[in-house]
C-alpha cells in the first residue's frame, strides 16, 4: 500500500509501457506520444493515478503505449466511458485520446456533451483530416475536394473545424498544437491538466501514409513563422519571422485582420492583446486559416467554471450528510400494514 517515501522524479520513459509501438514509421502520433510522456514527467504526474481512455482509430491505440491505467474502448465512445470513470472516482486524472473521425463523426455527440457538462478530463483530438485505421477515407475535418478511396472525385461535404465546434459546445478550455512542436505541446498539456473542467486540445497530426503533408502549408519550417501565431494570455497577438505581423480588429467590422507593423501607419499599439477569457476573440482566433491569416496555436480560450463530476459528488455528499440511507427503513417508507 501507500508507502510514505518521496517518490523519485519520473522520466518520460517511465510513462512508456513495455508494448511495441505499432504506428507507421514517420506517423505524427509518435511525436505526440513522446510529448505527452515528457509533459507528464515534467508535471510530476503519478502513473497509478492516471487513466488514458480512447475510442477506436490509429490515435486511439495510444493508451497501450502508456505505463498508466488505460482503456481502449469502442469507436467514438471514449468520452462516455471516461465520464463513468470520472463519476465513479473524481480523483483520477483522466485523459481522452481520439481521432478526428472518432470524435467528430461517430462520437460527435459524446464530445459535445463531455464538453458542455464540463467533466474534468483532458480531451486530445489528433486531427489528421483522414480515417487512418480504415485506410484513408476522408473524415469530417477533410477539406472539400479531398480525394480518398471513398471519394475518388473528391469529397463534397463541408468540414467542421474542431476548435470552433468545441467552443460551440461551451468548452471552457480550448487549445491547439502541432505534433512536431513538442515544447509547445508540453505547455498546452500542462495547462490542460491544471484546468479543472473539460480541456479540449486539437493536435494537428500528420498521417504520413494517407494524408501526408496535409498541413505542410503551415507546418513546414520554411513557412511556419509566417503562418502560425502562438498566442499567450496578456501578450500581443504578434507573429512573423521578424515579429512584425499582428492581429487587430479590422476597423468598422467584427473581423480580425492580419497587419504588418510599420506599414500603412500600423504601430504595435494597434495590435490586440490576447485575452484567453474572451470567447468572442477565441472564436475569431480558432477560425483563422492560411494563407490570409495565420493558424492560432497555444491556449486560445480558458475560462474555468465548476466541473460536472464535482457538482454531482457534492449532491451525493449533501444527501449523505443528511443521514446515510438505511435499506430497511427505505423498504418501509410510505404506507405499510402489519399482519399479525
Amino acid at each position: 500500500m501507500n508507502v510514505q517515501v518521496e517518490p523519485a522524479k519520473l522520466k518520460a520513459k517511465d510513462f512508456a509501457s513495455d508494448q511495441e509501438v505499432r504506428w507507421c514509421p514517420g506517423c505524427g502520433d509518435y511525436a505526440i506520444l513522446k510529448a505527452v510522456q515528457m509533459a507528464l514527467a515534467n508535471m510530476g504526474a503519478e502513473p497509478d493515478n492516471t487513466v488514458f481512455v480512447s475510442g477506436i482509430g490509429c490515435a486511439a491505440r495510444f493508451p497501450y503505449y502508456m505505463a498508466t491505467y488505460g482503456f481502449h474502448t469502442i469507436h467514438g465512445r471514449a468520452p462516455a466511458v471516461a465520464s463513468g470513470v470520472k463519476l465513479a472516482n473524481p480523483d483520477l486524472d483522466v485523459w481522452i485520446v481520439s481521432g478526428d473521425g472518432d470524435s467528430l463523426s461517430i462520437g460527435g455527440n459524446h464530445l459535445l456533451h463531455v464538453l458542455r457538462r464540463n467533466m474534468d478530463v483532458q480531451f486530445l483530438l489528433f486531427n489528421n483530416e483522414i480515417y487512418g485505421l480504415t485506410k484513408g477515407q476522408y473524415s469530417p475535418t477533410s477539406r472539400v475536394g479531398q480525394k480518398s478511396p471513398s471519394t475518388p472525385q473528391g469529397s463534397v461535404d463541408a468540414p467542421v473545424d474542431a476548435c470552433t465546434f468545441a467552443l460551440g459546445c461551451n468548452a471552457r478550455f480550448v487549445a491547439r498544437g502541432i505534433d512536431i512542436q513538442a515544447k509547445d505541446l508540453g505547455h498546452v498539456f500542462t495547462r490542460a491538466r491544471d484546468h479543472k473542467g473539460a480541456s479540449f486540445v486539437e493536435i494537428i497530426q500528420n498521417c504520413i501514409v494517407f494524408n501526408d503533408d496535409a498541413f505542410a502549408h503551415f507546418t513546414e519550417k520554411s513557412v511556419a513563422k509566417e503562418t502560425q501565431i502562438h498566442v499567450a494570455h496578456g501578450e500581443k497577438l504578434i507573429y512573423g519571422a521578424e515579429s512584425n505581423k499582428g492581429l487587430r480588429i479590422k476597423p468598422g467590422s467584427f473581423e480580425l485582420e492580419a497587419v504588418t507593423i510599420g506599414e500603412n501607419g500600423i504601430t504595435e499599439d494597434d495590435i490586440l492583446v490576447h485575452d484567453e477569457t474572451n470567447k468572442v476573440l477565441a472564436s475569431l482566433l480558432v477560425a483563422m486559416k492560411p494563407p490570409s491569416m495565420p493558424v492560432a496555436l497555444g491556449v486560445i480560450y480558458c475560462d474555468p467554471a465548476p466541473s460536472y463530476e464535482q457538482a454531482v459528488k457534492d449532491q451525493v455528499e449533501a444527501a449523505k450528510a443528511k443521514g446515510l440511507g438505511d435499506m430497511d427503513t427505505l423498504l418501509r417508507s410510505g404506507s405499510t400494514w402489519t399482519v399479525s
Partner: protein
Amino acid sequence: MNLQTDPSKGDGADGVQMSEADTDSIVVRFAGDSGDGVQLLGGQFAQATALDHNSLATFPDFPAEIRAPIGTTYGVSAFQIKFGSRMIKTSGDSPDVLVALNPAALKVNYKDLRTGGLIILDAGSFTERNLKKAGFDVDPREDGTLGGHRTIEIDISSLTLEATKPFDVTQKEALRGKNMWTLGLIYWMYDRSTDATEKFVAGKFGADSAVAQANIAALKAGHAYGETAEVSGDIQQTRVAEVEFAPGEYRLVTGAEALSWGLVAGCQLAGIDMTFCSYPITPSSPILHILSRLKNFGVTTFQAEDEIAAACSAIGASYAGNMGITASSGPGIALKTEAIGLAISTELPLVIVNTQRAGPSTGLPTKTEQSDLFLSVWGRNGDAPMVVLSAKSPSDCFETGIEAVRLATKYMTPVFLLSDGYIANAAEPWLIPSLSDYKPFPVSYRSEAEGFQPFSRDDETLARPWVKPGTPGLTHRIGGIEKADGSGNISYDPENHQRMTDLRTNKIAGIAKDIPAQAVELGNEGGKLAVVGWGSTFGPINRAVANMRDAGLDVAHIHIRNLWPLPENLIDLLGKFENVLVAEMNNGQMLTFLRSQTRQDIDGHLKVTGQPLTIKEVEDAIRARVQN
C-alpha cells in the same frame, strides 16, 4: 364473501370450470381520458384495498401520448385491479366492473367486460360531441350495444361540480375532482375507508388549500351517494374478506420500485457504490427517477446523452470500481449492444436492466411484451455470452436485482435483467424483507502487485481480477481487441483467440452451478404436459395450471428465471414430459430457444397484443393438449 356474486360468473367456457374470476375475487377496471386522473384513482384504490388486507394485483394501461386530444379513443387511460380473499396472481382476465368516465373509455373497454358485468358510466360526459369523438354513431346506451351487462348511469360530472361548489376553485379544477367522486363511490361499494385518500390529498395540495378541500368534498360526496342509496339498489355494497397473509409487515410495491431497491440492496450486500447511467425511455424511466432520490445510499445517477453513452459510462464506472448499471427499453437496448460486447470482452461487471416493451422499432411504447429474449441471449456481434435473468412479478424484481449484482461482481460479467412494462407498473402486496435476510457477497479488488496479470483467472469462477485505477503498482491496459490469455496484451494469435473464446464461454456456462436448480412450480417432475413460462407470465400460467390441476388434468408449471446460463437440470426435466408448451408474450422466442437447446418437439401459445396473458387463454391452451 363477494355479495355481488352472480352465478353466471366464471370463465364462461362451459359453466363448470371456474376461472380466477370467481366468487372470492373481483376485477374492477377504471377507464377515462388521460387527463381524468384514472391512474391516481386506481393507485389510491389499490392502497386502500391493501390496507383492508385483501390480496391484489394491478395493471395500469396508459396511452403513449401524454395528453392525446380529449375524448378520443387513443387518449384512454385505464387501471385494472383484481382483489380478493385469496392469493391473487394476476390483474384479472375480464373485469366484473367497468367504470367509464367518458364514451371513448366505454368504447375501448366494454368488450372486455365479462357477461353480466356492471358498467358505471359518467352520463354527464355522454354528449353528442363526445359520442362522435369516441366513434359511436349511435348512443351505445340506446342501441343495445351494452346488452348483457348491467349499466348504471350517474352524472358524475355535475355531481362533482355540485359537491365542489362551496370552494374557491375554477370550473376546470372542480371537474378534475371527478376521479375523487368516483373513488368515493367505489370505496363505498367495497366498504373501504376514505381516510388514507383524504390524508393523501391534504398532503399533496396542502390541507388548507381550496383544491384539497374540493377534492375531499368530491370524494365524500361519491361515498355518500352510494350510502344514501341514490343508486336505488343497482349497486350493492360488497365486503371482500381478508386474506390469510403470513404475519409480517407489508406494503404495495411496483416492479420499478422493487427493481431499483433490489439493485441498491445488491450494492449494499456487495459493499460497493452504484453508478446508474440511463437515458429516459418508457417504461424504463421510473427506475432512473427512483434511484436519483437515493443518493444517500451512495447512488450516483447520470442522465446520459443517449443509451450508448449510458451503457458506456456505466462500463467506465465499473472499470473504476463502482457497480455500473444501465437501464432502458426497446430501441434503447438495441443501442447498447456494442457497449455490452465491450464489457464482455474486457470482463467487467455491468447490469443492464431491460424493461421490455412491444416492438419492433418504437413498437408500442406503453404496452408490454417479452420479445427481447433473442436480443439478450444472442444479440451481439461475435461469440459474446453473458448472464440473462428475468423477474416474474413486481416483488420478485427485488430478488432478481440483488442476484444480478451478485453474479455481475462475482463473475466479472455483464448481466441482463429482464423486466417488462407490465411488471414495472403493476403493484402487488409484498411481505417486506430485511437486508439481514440476505447473505452479503462483498467484492474484493486486487491490490497485490506481485504476480499480477489483468487476465489471470480465479480457479473456481474463472473471473479475472478487478483492479481499481489508482491502485499503486497495478497499472495495466484493457480494451476490446482480443487479449492474450493472462497478460491481457493485444494478441492476434489464432490459438489464443480460440482459448479466450472458450474461457469466456466456460466462465458463463459455469455459473449454472451457482444458481438454483430448475424446480417445478406446480405439479410433478414429469407427466403429460409441462407449461413453460418466463418473466411476467408467471401469474396467469400459474393460476391456469392450478385450475387445470384442480380439474384433474396432468399438467405442470415450469418457470424459468435464469435464461442464460440455463439451470443444469432443465433439459432433463423437460424431457420427462410427453409434451411441453411454452406460453409467452412474443412470437416464439423461448420456444425456438428451448427447441435449440433441447432438440425436443416443443409447442407454443404465443401472443403479442401488448396485453398480458389471460388465465383463460392458458387454460384453453392446456385443455387443447391434455384431457382427463
